[in-house]
């Protein structure tokens, strides 16, 4: 029988059925961070349990740490509750001898940037993390699920995840990506098309030449937002681009092991004629840069469109849209490009890698951010991304343009630290969620690509990056 990539990884990791009939999937890599792990370790302690295979775990700190004044490390975190959370992760990792990139480590960063960058994310793996954007790692042909804290504890204790088998969904991006349009625009276009619950219960496999032509970083951007379409995971095929990316990374296998691994990896790609439960095509030949207008990631239009009119929608959608417009302070019919901004955020596990920062620098070089902006941030995804950007002089370019150049972390993607929007501030953000209050109480988020965010910073309003090509 012809199998999909998902079918093959599932089969390779299927341990068996429990007495109660539920199925166990073996987990190869467990990524942890400070927010969703403390209660799991506490649970282990209370039950006198130990981690099953601590070599499978990689930890870093990202969500609640500040992105400036980091020289004092943990002690320098002003927020005492956040500080305790970081100290707790420090302690848990020390106690269980877990490999941990702490605040002082140059490899520290957003967990979904760090894993791939280290080669800790490999094809054919099963990966979990107590974070919904774990789907990012699917770009490597790895089956990666975001899980809750009880499941984090379960995986720590048993190395298995209780999982019912997902359905297969195939998404083909058909056509050639126009200039100025990026992976971020592709995934926003998909979510706009199928909705935030469009892939519930499914693992999405992204296919098509346009996907194969993307860099590994672009692929991560797409897989990252699979969860925003409701998917359990996103996946992409295993190819030479991926091998070239992985070879020589610190955690990647070497020598004979590398050769053995490559043989197995290449056998995992979906068979010709494999069947999917659902198939979607997204036409991208004429795709324009995408921008969200509302309060969930399916509320998206092209940059040259206007704010949609709820009157033209179905009853249920209209009500939600009306509420979203009110929250966002928008009127139907206004051109997206007329929306003035207060802040720019370039960062997050979606778009804080070196190529993202390069694309921003290319646009802002020799220009200045508009004077109406309160702030514009570039927050690199990891210490190594930051180093690389500095080696290329990108930090000088964005700083000269008026951006703040911060230390790595999740930052204003979810505003757990002090990087945030204030009430009614409007922001062009390269992050992944435009939910109410996500970037700060009553803040207004427009999700865009890094290039669009850069162009918008220059104009002080949502801008069409194609004008800069």
């Amino acid at each position, binding site marked *: 029988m012809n199998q999909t990539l998902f079918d093959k990884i599932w089969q390779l990791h299927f341990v068996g059925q429990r007495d109660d009939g539920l199925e166990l999937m073996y987990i190869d890599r467990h990524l942890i961070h400070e927010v969703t792990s403390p209660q799991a370790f506490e649970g282990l302690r209370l039950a006198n349990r130990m981690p099953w295979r601590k070599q499978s775990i990689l930890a870093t700190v990202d969500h609640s740490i500040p992105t400036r004044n980091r020289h004092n490390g943990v002690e320098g975190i002003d927020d005492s509750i956040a500080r305790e959370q970081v100290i707790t992760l420090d302690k848990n990792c020390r106690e269980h001898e877990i490999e941990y990139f702490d605040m002082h480590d140059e490899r520290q960063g957003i967990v979904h940037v760090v894993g791939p960058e280290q080669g800790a994310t490999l094809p054919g793996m099963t990966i979990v993390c107590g974070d919904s954007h774990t789907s990012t790692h699917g770009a490597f042909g790895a089956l990666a699920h975001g899980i809750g804290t009880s499941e984090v504890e379960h995986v720590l204790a*048993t190395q298995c995840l209780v999982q019912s088998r997902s359905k297969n969904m195939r998404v083909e991006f058909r056509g050639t990506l126009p200039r100025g349009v990026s992976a971020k625009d592709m995934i926003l276009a998909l979510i706009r098309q199928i909705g935030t619950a469009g892939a519930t219960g499914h693992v999405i496999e992204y296919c098509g030449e346009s996907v194969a032509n993307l860099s590994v970083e672009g692929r991560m951007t797409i897989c990252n937002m699979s969860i925003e379409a409701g998917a359990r995971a996103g996946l992409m095929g295993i190819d030479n681009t991926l091998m070239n990316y992985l070879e020589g990374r610190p955690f990647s296998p070497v020598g004979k092991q590398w050769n053995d691994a490559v043989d197995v990896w290449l056998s995992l790609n979906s068979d010709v004629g494999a069947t999917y439960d659902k198939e979607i095509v997204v036409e991208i030949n004429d795709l324009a840069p995408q921008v969200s207008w509302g309060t969930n990631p399916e509320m998206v239009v092209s940059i040259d469109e206007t704010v949609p009119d709820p009157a033209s929608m179905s009853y249920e959608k209209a009500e939600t849209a009306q509420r979203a417009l009110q929250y966002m302070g928008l009127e139907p019919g206004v051109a997206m490009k007329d929306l003035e901004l207060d802040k720019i955020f370039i960062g997050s596990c979606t778009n804080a890698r070196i190529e993202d920062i390069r694309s921003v620098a290319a646009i802002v070089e020799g220009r200045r951010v508009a004077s109406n902006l309160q702030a514009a941030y570039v927050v690199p995804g990891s210490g190594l991304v930051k180093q690389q950007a500095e080696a290329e002089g990108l930090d000088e370019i964005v700083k000269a343009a008026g951006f703040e150049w911060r230390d790595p972390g999740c930052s204003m993607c979810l505003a757990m630290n002090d990087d945030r929007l204030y009430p009614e501030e409007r922001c062009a953000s390269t992050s992944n969620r435009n939910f109410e209050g996500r970037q700060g109480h009553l803040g207004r988020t427009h999700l865009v690509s890094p290039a669009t965010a850069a162009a918008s910073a220059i104009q002080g309003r949502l801008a069409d990056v194609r004008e800069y090509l």
Partner: protein
Amino acid sequence: MTSKHLKFIQHSGKVVPFDRANVDTDQIIPKQFLKSIKRTGFGENLFDAWRFLDEGYIGKTDRQENPKFVLNYPQYHDASILLARRNFGCGSSREHAVWALLQYGFRCVIAPSFADIFYNNSLNNGLLPVTLSETQVDTLFRLTYENKTLTIEIDLETQQITGEKLDTIGFTIDPNRRLRLLEGLDEIALTLKHASEIQEFEKQHRQRMHWLFSSR
């Protein structure tokens, strides 16, 4: 008290009509409350940005309730069943959302569909997610509005929802998950009963994909 491994057999309670689709976990429990390293204390900040007019933070007292928010209507103060629209619990994987709902006093959420991670998190904590058809959910909304309040009984054993004003509604749930909720079993203990199988699997896996074990 820990909210873990709660049993669910049957529950009788008042329904609050939460007439919104795509309620995300950022709304259920906003990020500023995720800094806690405990499993408890989240109930008072459930739906914080909607329930209160002022911006909340951990430990803030003297809050200004938003009288227009449905949970604050006097008739729903003691509701324990949340009736919502499709794709409930989408977004972030934060289990804190489920803890917040339970600790506020909810035992059950009824909706036409749930986001996958939220659904699993609910089952792992004894918050019963009941999936009904759009039409059945519409009926429950209508009855709640018509009667000002609606009290129903949800029986996981018989998989039925009953109530004075209502024709009995059957619901389905994965039979294995149902059993575990009925018995309130410890998920990890159940899996560890298969420890030798996991070890055996691991041995074979180590042969098939040895680089996963010998590299770092």
